[in-house]
């Protein structure tokens, strides 16, 4: 294991800049996610680290070694692909042995390390099978064992869970967390799924348009997004339009569709029209009036397990997505019912109007 440093990394295809001046340092044993919408450059960064794509500029360092010019086979990295990319003509055990053999491991040591790598992903009984005889989740676990077995200096994941169905994805996330706590691998995990990034990572790097938007712990990213793009990208946002009515420190009060909405983060002066982002999960529906509650009426109800989701109308033409626990007294409200909304100001963000639009088209 070693730390990984990217310095002023660029990738251009003709006029198009895919990765734009990315500098990033990942500590020894740290798990960092590259999060962003498709086309934000995250996979390109990963492939440059792996040596599969040549950077147009900048330096990649593993430990103290400059690997920018090294071919992939000299970098001592492990890469886990979205498509699994197992060798279909080799058995599971031979897939895992592939990288070990390339490093000159043979005989009993080879056997032992293949066995322990398969045990790590709980596939000990499957060594003699061919990859195609395994399920998608099992195949991805083989791919992880194959990448981990040669003890790479850096482990790279290219959207490894995207091809799995939802339930399997959750299981694999836990599997990855467990692996991470056992092996302390320096890992870079590319994903477009914020939930994956938030739950797996020590730090998350949010990218848009080939540029780093914010690098922060999952908690900071969620509660203290650095800018409009991130606030609208993390969590489940309601998007509204309003005006800044008051400023109080970094926060303030917003006027949205006739009601006043306190906000913890307002990036615009008083009087300007702003985009308002209200996290869905921070809008609670109550059957009875609450302090500072905003009156609303139910428009639609949909059940989603632990929660019930509502579409509520707060003013003519202003709708919000809200939720309530699926067991409380607000669990089964019919349309047109009068309710009160309790909105956590910490989950309300106001951003200059143009900025959001620009960032989104850019992304």
């Amino acid at each position, binding site marked *: 294991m070693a730390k990984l440093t990217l310095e002023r990394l660029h990738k251009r295809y003709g006029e198009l800049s895919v990765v734009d001046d990315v500098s990033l340092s990942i500590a020894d044993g740290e798990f960092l996610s590259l999060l962003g919408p498709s086309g934000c450059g995250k996979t390109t960064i990963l492939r440059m680290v792996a040596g599969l794509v040549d950077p147009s500029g900048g330096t990649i360092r593993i430990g103290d070694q400059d690997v920018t010019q090294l071919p*992939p086979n000299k970098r*001592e990295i492990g*890469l886990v692909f979205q498509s699994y990319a197992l060798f*279909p003509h080799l058995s599971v055990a031979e897939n895992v042995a592939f990288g070990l053999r390339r490093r000159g491991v043979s005989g009993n040591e080879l056997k032992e390390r293949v066995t322990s790598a398969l045990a790590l992903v709980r596939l000990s009984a499957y060594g003699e099978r061919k990859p195609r005889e395994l399920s998608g989740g099992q195949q991805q676990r083989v791919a992880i064992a194959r990448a981990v077995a040669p003890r790479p200096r850096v482990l790279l994941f290219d959207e490894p869970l995207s091809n799995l169905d939802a339930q399997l994805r959750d299981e694999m996330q836990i599997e990855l967390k467990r692996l991470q706590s056992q092996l302390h691998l320096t890992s870079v995990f590319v994903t477009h799924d914020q939930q994956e990034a938030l739950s797996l990572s020590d730090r998350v790097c949010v990218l848009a348009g080939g540029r780093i938007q914010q690098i922060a712990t999952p908690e900071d990213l969620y509660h203290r997004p650095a800018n409009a793009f991130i606030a609208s990208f993390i969590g489940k946002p309601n998007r509204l339009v309003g005006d800044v009515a008051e400023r109080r420190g970094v926060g303030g009060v917003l006027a949205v569709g006739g009601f006043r909405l306190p906000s913890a983060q307002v990036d615009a002066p008083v009087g300007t029209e702003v985009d308002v982002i209200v996290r869905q999960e921070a809008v609670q529906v109550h059957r009875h009036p609450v302090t500072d509650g905003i009156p609303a009426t139910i428009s639609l109800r949909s059940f989603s397990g632990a929660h019930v989701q509502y579409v509520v109308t707060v003013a003519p033409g202003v709708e919000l997505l809200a939720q309530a626990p699926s067991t409380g007294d607000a669990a089964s409200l019919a349309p047109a019912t009068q309710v009160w909304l309790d909105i956590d100001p910490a989950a309300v963000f106001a951003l200059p109007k143009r900025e959001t639009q620009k960032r989104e088209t850019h992304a």
Partner: protein
Amino acid sequence: MNAVAPAARRRAWQDPALLAPLTILLAALFLAPLLLMVPMSFREYDPGTGVVAGSWTLENYSRLLTDEFYREVALRTLGLGLAVTACSLLLGYPLAYVIARGNPRWRVTLVLLVVFPMMLNLVVRSFGWIALLSNHGLINNLLVGLGLIDTPLKLMFNLTGLIIGLTHIYLPFMVLMLVSSIQGVPRDVEAAASTLGSSRFHVFRAVTLPLTAPGILTGSILVFVLTVSALVTPRMLGGPTYKVMATLIYDEYMQLLDWPSGSALAFALTVVVLAFIWASSRLAKRWGGMA
């Protein structure tokens, strides 16, 4: 029992029904006449009177092993088949690789160039090779003129000539099979090998080549079968004396009118070809890990 049943029933008879027209056509026009030739291959042939009715003999078959001339032609044909297959593979693989992996803008053009010779008549192409390969052909005249050799190389009426001519004619089949096979190798799997420490050569040897085994197999079978059954080119580049199985069978039928011997040779060739296909598929399956 339920709504699924009719659909399942429909599917059950649909496949055979779709195959029926071709099956009937082949059975009536190909298989039946072919089977009629089976008894013929065991008949005696008397050069004066023709096929001796009611006679039974194994001599038409045993001749292939006992008669030196027949044996030589049979071995020559197999050798030719293997040599042409090997040459097509060696020449075709790099070409197919360039087509499959090179700039996509050139792909159509290159495939058209590969296919282009197939648009020319076989006789014309073979004549082209005669003009190039004969004792006073283009190649020999050039080499003698440059002073590289004193006497012309013998490039026709022998194995060399047939290998050159047939490789040229059947190379496109091999290339087309290989192109689609190479295109089917996932790039991620190759990338995975290189991140695991494989050099570019090792990636090719350990991943690309085994994964294209099915393409190599079908291409090889195709070229081998076409080569051992080729008639026109061996006749033109081999002349009347340098014979292969196909030209021999043709002569037995059309010139000697010895149908029993001709049929026996034809069946023997079929059996050998089937054995070759069987053996090579087993080999390729084991190698490509598909077994």
